[in-house]
Structure formats: C-alpha cells, structure tokens
C-alpha cells in the first residue's frame, strides 16, 4: 500500500514516441517527444529533466511504471531493461502497462467514449490490436485478448460500438474498416458531408455512443489515428494499483518483461 502522494516514475519507448512522466506531490509532470532511434538516451534525459523540475530524486521513488508493449521490439526492450535496472537497483515494485491500453485510455478521454478498438501499426502488413471498455473508475479495461494479425483479420465483436484509435488506422484504414463491417462508412453516412468527428459536435451532453445507436452492424464513429502511447497516461492507469498495492498488477524487477505478441522468427 502506498499513500496517494506516492512518487512514481513512468516511461514508454515502444513506438516512435518516447515519453516519461513523474507523479510527485500529487501532480503529474510529463515529457513526450517523437524521437525514432533516440530512445535509449532520450529516456534518461527526460527523467533527469523531470527530477530537475520537481526537485525529486531517484531515492524518492515508490514505484516504476513502464510500457511493456506491444510495439517495436527494440523499443519495448529498452523500457523493460530500464525498469529492471532502476527497479532492481532501488528495490522498487514495477507496474507493466499495455501500450494498447494506454492508447485506449487516451482515446476514450479525448472523445468521451465508453469503448475503444485500438490498432497499432506492427509493420510487415500486420497490426497489434486490443478492445477496451471504460470501467466505473473511468479507466480502460481489456475487453478481450490483445493480439497481432493482418488488419482485415482483426477480430471485432459483433455489434462493437465505440471509437477507433491507434497508428494502424492511418496505414490500414480500409482493411480495418472492413473488419469492422464498414462501420466507419456507416457513421459517416449519418452526417453527410462531415467527418465522423464533426458529426458528434453540436450534440453536447450526449454520450457519443448514443449518437450512433441504431446504426446496423455496430459503429465506430471516430477514428483517431494520431494517438501514441504516453507515459503520463500509463501513470494514470498504474497509480490506482500502486496505491492499492494490487499484487496482481505489480511485479518485481526481474519480471519487468516485454510483451511482444509477435513471435521472433
């Protein structure tokens, strides 16, 4: 159990984004940069700068949070190696957070949605995917297993209703839309001439899902392809389990390991 004032460092290096966030004195400070191939050095610089800004130090940390994947293999390993090293050296508990879940959380908040289908570009014609539902605590919870598949084969529950997010929507929009039963098109058809996002404006107070009820075959009215995993969001997802001391979500440093989803060879 940790007090709500726990000092927690979160990092993520799984995608082209590199991010770090520090929960300290009840507030969160954040660093975020698109920095391909610089994660191994930038992550240390970001953490240093967070400590400098807050006056906190490594000795003040109560826990480490890291993006455990899926994502770029090398990037996910950088985060895991960092969490292992710092976690072991300082004897800290470690909380691994799914990168798909972090994107889901950010998307649900940005668009005030209750569920999300996240698909991140996995290269080689495949995507990492995961479905999430927003719990009573406001946090994204998995609604099914995460996986990797060609975009047209992403399994989507019949009647899925929610938002779509993640980098794969930029690369494989058509194929993913097909997997969703052309839900994006249906959503668009509801408000001719407007983008799905626009269609929701001007309906203040309504839950976005509500706006789409009645669309046959489920609907995805928003497609947010710009969201990348962010350590600040991971911090938000991990803080409750750290404060509650949730043994199911906290691991020791040696078990701070990547989740790749894709086999290596």
């Amino acid at each position, binding site marked *: 159990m940790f007090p709500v004032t726990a000092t927690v460092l979160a990092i993520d290096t799984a995608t082209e984004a590199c991010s770090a966030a520090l929960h300290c004195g009840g507030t969160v400070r954040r660093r975020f940069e698109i920095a391909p191939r610089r994660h191994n050095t930038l992550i*240390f610089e970001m953490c240093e700068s967070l400590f400098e800004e807050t006056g906190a130090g490594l000795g003040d940390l109560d826990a480490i949070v890291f993006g455990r994947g899926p994502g770029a*293999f*090398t990037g996910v390993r950088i985060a895991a190696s960092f969490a292992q*090293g710092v976690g072991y050296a300082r004897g800290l508990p470690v909380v691994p957070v799914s990168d798909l879940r972090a994107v889901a959380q950010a998307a649900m908040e940005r668009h005030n949605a209750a569920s999300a289908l996240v698909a991140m570009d996995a290269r080689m014609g495949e995507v990492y995917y995961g479905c999430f539902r927003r719990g009573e605590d406001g946090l994204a919870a998995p609604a099914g297993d995460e996986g990797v598949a060609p975009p047209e084969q992403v399994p989507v529950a019949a009647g899925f209703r929610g938002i779509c997010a993640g980098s794969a929507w930029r690369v494989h929009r058509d194929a993913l839309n097909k997997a969703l039963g052309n839900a994006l098109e249906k959503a668009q058809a509801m408000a001719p001439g407007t983008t799905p996002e626009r269609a929701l404006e001007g309906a203040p107070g309504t839950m976005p899902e509500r706006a789409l009820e009645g669309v046959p075959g489920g609907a995805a009215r928003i497609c947010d392809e710009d969201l990348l995993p962010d350590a600040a969001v991971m911090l938000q997802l991990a803080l409750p389990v750290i404060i509650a001391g949730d043994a199911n979500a906290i691991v020791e440093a040696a078990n701070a390991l990547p989740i790749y989803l894709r086999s290596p060879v």
Partner: protein
Amino acid sequence: MRVLGIETSCDETGIGLVDSSAGVVAEALFSQVGIHRPHGGVVPELAARDHVRKLLPLLRETLGAREMDEVDAVAYTAGPGLIGALLTGAVFGHSLAWALGKPAIGVHHLEAHLLAVMLQGAPPPPYLALLVSGGHTQLVAAHDIGHYELLGDTLDDAVGEAFDKVARMLGLGYPGGPEIQRLARRGRARRFEFPQPMARRPGLDFSFSGLKTRALQTLRHCGDDDDRCHADIALAFEMAAVGSLTERCRRALGQSGCKRLVAAGGVAANARLRRELAKLGGDGVEVIYPEMKLCADNGVMIANAGLLRLQAGQTPDPLPQVRARWPLTELQPPRAA
C-alpha cells in the same frame, strides 16, 4: 575499485564483478548456443529477447549475498555487435548505475578481448594481438590502452564464421569451431591438403572464403556417409586455417619487432591454434593466450576494460550510446572530458 561488467553484444549474456586489487570476484554466464543451434547461426531477435530475460537473474547470481552498494561503477558493452542485443545490456547497465548515482561506462567489445589477459597477470600493452572470433579476424598492434593499429584484417569471412560454415557442410552442429576440432582429431593428415590462404601474398590480411570453397569441392568426392572422408576434410581445413593465422602472426612479429603476442576471442580456444602459436614463442618472444573461459564473450572482460579506463581517469558516459559498427582503431586512450 569494484566494477560490474555486462556483456550482451551477441549470443552470450555475461555478468562479471572485478576488483582492482582482488581481480575477478564473481561471474555468471549464459550461452544462448542451444537457442540458436536449430537456426545454424545467431538470430538477432532471439538473442535480444533472451538477454532481457537473463540479465537480472545472472546479476543476482553474480552478486550472491553482496549488495549493489559494493559496486563502484558499471561497465557495459557499447559495441560493436548486434544492435538490439547491445541496447538491452547497455540500457540495463546504465540504468543500474544511474539509479545508484554511480559512474557508468560503455566498453568496446574488442578492446575488452584484447585486455582480458591482464586479468591473469599479463602486463598491459604494448603487444601484438590476434583477434579471432565468429565476427572478427584481425591482427592488431596494441601500443597502449586505447591506441590500436590495425595490421591485418579478413578480406571476406571471419575465421570463426568459416569454421561454422564448413561445419554445416559436414553436417556438424553449431558453433562449428569445437565440432570441427573434435572431428579433425580422427582425420588423416595428408589425405587432403588445402593450400594455406593468401600464402603467397605479402601483407598481413586474411581470407577464408577460398578455403571454404575448397572444402565444399572436396566434400563432393566423399560418399554421403563417409565419416572418414569428413574427418579428413575437417583436419585439412583446420590445418590450413590455423596455418594461415599462425603464419601471419609470425610475419607480424618479424616485421614489428614486437616481443609479445596475445591471442584473443572465441577461436583462441582452438587447441591446434594454441599449439601452433606456442611454437612462435622462444627467442625472447612470449605468446600469451587467455584462459579458456576468457576466450568466449563474458562479463568479466567488460568489467576489466571498464575498470582500466576508469582508473586511468576516463570520464564516465552520461548516456548509454551503442554502435553496431565501431572500428577498434577509432578508440582513444582514456581521458577526462
């Protein structure tokens, strides 16, 4: 001063703890050979995945009852090597040091091999060094720590790579070095004689691809299950490869007037090479090879190289930079920033 060394440049996860006065304090090593054997060579992604699983268990094994407090600095391999594998060890090692406010230093893998014999009491450079492994075949004039001159290099395959490839031709396992050595013991000398590569060419460069082709051509004359024939090929190949390495060393000793020769790297564990190089000794020439366990990649040699540089006053590295390609000759002597 006590330095922790971390090696993850290829398919060995090595951790070593070296003390400036007590020498090697503890070490742990995991070889991934079994993981890569079905693929006939190192698969980079498999290597990196295994490093990230093994680093912390091996660190615990190395430390035993000791605490990280007893470690004064952390050294890690910063290159050359497989980029994904390097990053894993470098970020792990750097974060250990960073979290404890201790110095961290990135080490050149080949320099660590070159200096490893100092762990068994050999004096520091100057000496001539023969660096032989699955990735390198170089003759180096080590003038001082950080001051290396490349005298000869392979024009094609590294010698260890040639051993691997010929082993595969002969239906032997991976890695090829020990397998060929074992089979060659049953070979009949002079059944086949492979010409020593580059024998008539001046200079100190190496070439092994012709020798490999020769082995393949000879193999075609053998029956499918002709064990004797395979053993004869293994012996002819080993003799020619070792002969070529030894001959270049003899030349280099003569040309440079240097009186000490150090062998290093995985192929330096080959018994025939050790025997033949030993014959170059005498007349004031000393031939030194590392103990068997220091030949292969290991964490102890990384700790040693880091320790030597830090003791010489080198400024620690503020960030974990790695380089997949990093010529030994680009190294600088230890210096304060």
